[in-house]
């Protein structure tokens, strides 16, 4: 056997698949599965911080001026810091690392039947930079003046001039952390695309790749194509802050609108960057638990490409009334509303997948279906905001806030729980407790709606965002509106308490749960063909692929699934 053939037989990176000590296995790993866990656990710790911030500022809104138990007083500057960093953390340090970096790392090599990422050392470096970026962000809360409080969109001159934001180093460290985080994901992204395109198992054609992998790859491509302008913008902002340039300062010939364009040119594709991985994960879960082939695999794939492409030409819908030429708004209304076309088609395909199925409502399936239901509300309310004339009223109101929490909460939190409960047996070799899983599901999903549905009505009543105490606005200080705020806050506290059920279930199942078989859900994709958890190197023998990922209930077969790697008789 020649050397090259031997490499194919045992995997490309055979040299580092020996047993490793603790340091090299868990702290400085090259194994994509351990790196994925690092991302997921870091993301979950950041989610706890972000949730804690939400708790603190929601308590202040419901009971203004009172001491928040477990936090203390929330003053105006601190309120700004809390909402700013809640948004920053939840998008950049929870959604991105858990869904793209975490599950991307875990799923791509396993689902395409390869032994590791093609650049394992870049992969490790990517996580290390990510960890540094998270530490820099946390450090920014403690420097003199406190953390940055200029909203996660960081519009200059507020963000660029220390006299305006009063958080001199807080804002600089914030920009630095965000820039570092982007570098980390750029490194990771190169790795993901290269691996998915070049390291697929023999026989796996483009149209045999599971949707989850496809969507992560599309998301990464969107990210890499859109992040350039923002990194440039972040460097300019940092220079404005620290060495006195005036890129965004009108008194020095700069223009604050420039930042808005750079930021939203990235910021809107970013929405689809975090959305697509969850949509992919949900597609895989609903096919498994309804024992159905995905309805129109190619259509779903092409709609994702169309959505990704369109997402590059809609950014100014965040700026309809920001002082851009009003005629420009008409163009962006058209492109924005057009996004409903591919996404509606995708939604129809997902729901058509359920038709004629044999649906089992296991915990991951409940999460996946609830994602579709909640995201539907987020999607249709987006139409209001795509209409520029309504933006004249809704800009920076609670209607916007409720809308994007109905997209980001399903994407980030529901998507994360769907993926974790679905792949938990593979990750840790044990099953999670179903009953606790369902209690946690209902204890999260019902309060989630109780938090955010009422906020739509606050938005309709004219409540604007990022205000630490509505008592200063007589039209908004009525008792009816205050009752809505209290209701939302109480729902949030209930939802946060139910997360303890998940934490308990997660850790107890990890060590004491029932042992998981290799393929507990009787699924087709390649990760279920290896042991649970997979060994370092993933497969004892690299698989060969014979068919697409969604051959469920194929006529003429006794079993209702047909794994991709099983040779035809």
């Amino acid at each position, binding site marked *: 056997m020649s050397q090259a053939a031997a490499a194919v037989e045992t995997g490309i990176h055979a040299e580092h698949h020996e047993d490793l000590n603790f340091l090299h296995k868990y702290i400085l790993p090259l194994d994509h599965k351990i790196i994925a866990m690092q991302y997921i656990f870091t993301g979950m710790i950041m989610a706890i911080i972000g949730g804690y911030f939400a708790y603190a500022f929601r308590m202040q809104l419901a009971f203004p001026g009172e001491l928040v138990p477990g*936090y*203390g*007083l*929330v*003053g*105006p*500057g*601190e309120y*700004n810091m809390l909402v700013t960093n809640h948004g920053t953390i939840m998008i950049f340090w929870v959604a991105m690392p858990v869904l793209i970096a975490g599950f991307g790392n875990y799923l791509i090599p396993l689902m395409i039947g390869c032994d590791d990422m093609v650049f394992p050392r870049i992969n490790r470096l990517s996580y290390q930079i990510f960890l540094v970026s998270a530490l820099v962000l946390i450090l920014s809360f*403690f420097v003199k003046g*406190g953390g940055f409080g200029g909203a996660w969109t960081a519009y200059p*001159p*507020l963000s660029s001039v220390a006299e305006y934001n009063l*958080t001199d180093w807080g804002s600089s460290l914030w920009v630095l952390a965000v820039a570092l985080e982007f570098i980390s994901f750029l490194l990771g992204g190169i790795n993901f695309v290269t691996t998915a395109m070049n390291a697929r198992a023999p026989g796996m054609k483009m149209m045999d790749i599971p949707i989850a992998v496809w969507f992560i790859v599309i998301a990464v491509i969107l990210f890499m194509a859109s992040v350039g302008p923002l990194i440039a913008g972040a460097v300019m902002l940092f220079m404005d802050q620290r060495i006195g340039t005036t890129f965004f300062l009108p008194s020095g010939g700069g223009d*604050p609108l420039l930042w808005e364009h750079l930021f939203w040119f990235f910021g809107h594709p970013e929405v689809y960057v975090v959305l697509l991985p969850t949509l992919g994960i949900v597609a895989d879960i609903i096919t498994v638990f309804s*024992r159905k*082939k995905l*309805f129109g695999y190619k*259509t779903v794939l092409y709609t994702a490409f169309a959505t990704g492409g369109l997402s590059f030409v809609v950014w100014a819908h965040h700026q309809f*009334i920001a002082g851009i030429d*009003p005629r420009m*708004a008409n163009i962006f209304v058209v492109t924005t509303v057009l996004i*409903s076309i591919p996404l*509606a088609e995708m939604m*129809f*395909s997902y*729901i*058509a997948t*359920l*038709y004629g199925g*044999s*649906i*089992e409502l296991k915990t991951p399936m409940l999460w996946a279906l609830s994602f579709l*239901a909640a995201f*539907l509300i987020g999607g*249709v309310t987006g*139409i*209001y905001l795509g*209409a*520029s*004339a309504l933006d004249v*009223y809704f*800009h*920076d109101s609670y209607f916007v806030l409720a809308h994007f929490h109905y997209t980001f909460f399903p994407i980030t939190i529901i998507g994360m729980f769907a993926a974790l409960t679905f792949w938990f047996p593979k990750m840790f070799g044990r099953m999670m407790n179903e009953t606790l899983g369902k209690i946690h599901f209902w204890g999260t999903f019902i309060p989630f709606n109780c938090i955010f549905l009422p906020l739509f*009505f606050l938005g*309709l*009543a*004219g409540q*604007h965002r990022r*205000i630490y*105490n509505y*008592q*200063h*606005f*007589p*039209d*908004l*200080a009525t008792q009816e509106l205050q009752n809505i705020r209290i209701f939302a806050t109480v729902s949030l506290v209930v939802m946060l308490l139910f997360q303890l059920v998940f934490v308990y279930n997660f850790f107890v199942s990890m060590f004491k749960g029932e042992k998981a078989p290799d393929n507990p859900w009787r699924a087709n994709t390649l990760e279920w063909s290896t042991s649970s958890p997979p060994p370092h190197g993933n497969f004892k023998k690299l698989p060969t692929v014979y068919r697409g990922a969604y051959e469920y*209930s194929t006529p003429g077969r006794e079993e*209702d699934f047909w794994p991709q790697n099983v040779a035809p008789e």
Partner: protein
Amino acid sequence: MIEYFILSASSFSGDIDNLFLVITLIIGFWFILVFGALVYFTLKFRRKDGVKAEYITGEKHSETKWTHYPHYAVIAMDVVIIAANIIVWVNIKQTLPPKDNLIRVIGQQWSWSFVDAGPDGVLDTADDITTVNDLHVKVDETYHFELQARDVIHNFSVPVFRLRQDALPGRTIKGWFKPTNTGSFDIQCAEMCGYGHGIMGGAITVHTKESYDETIVQIKNGTYESHYQKRMGTKTPLPSNTSHTEGHNSFAVLLASIF
């Protein structure tokens, strides 16, 4: 629907409310249809012993029509939404109806200044009337405003007029409104503008001709009492529950106590 939650008090607020209603009807239809299908399929196609799921690829024409026909309907309704929106938008933001009065609105950290051009209709002349956090306008007259910001980005927002417009430092942005109801209403700053963003408000008072003249006389002879202060009543507009420096440190103190 919006008018159920908040008064509609300008000439274009009704258009915005109607546009909201049109879009609500369209997307309400889709929402009920899609949500209904989701719930119905989930309930109807639950697993039964011995019953296998159907094998549907979704690639044959007889199958794809179930997603394609609704898809075409979505396109048609998108066209309706876009057309309705552009009509309203052009009316509010792209056209300036002939003016009766001219004002200048200046946002700064953290208050609003208003300059009324006065009877001669020209700004920066001796008959200008300057007020802070307090804007007085006449009902049923068209106002043009010139919006400016002194330091950071602000947003001039009057919810009862359905009016929001960013104020950018270094630019003057023109716009208009025409009040249709008398009364005193909130002015907000609807763009994060720093530490005092939460207290940056004001009051707009829409007068009849007589009460407007009366107020102007009061402003000129100094017997005027700010409507903004009156509306705030006992509530102080200053951040009352913490001092500037305390606020920044309590999170640090808390975490420090953990480690």
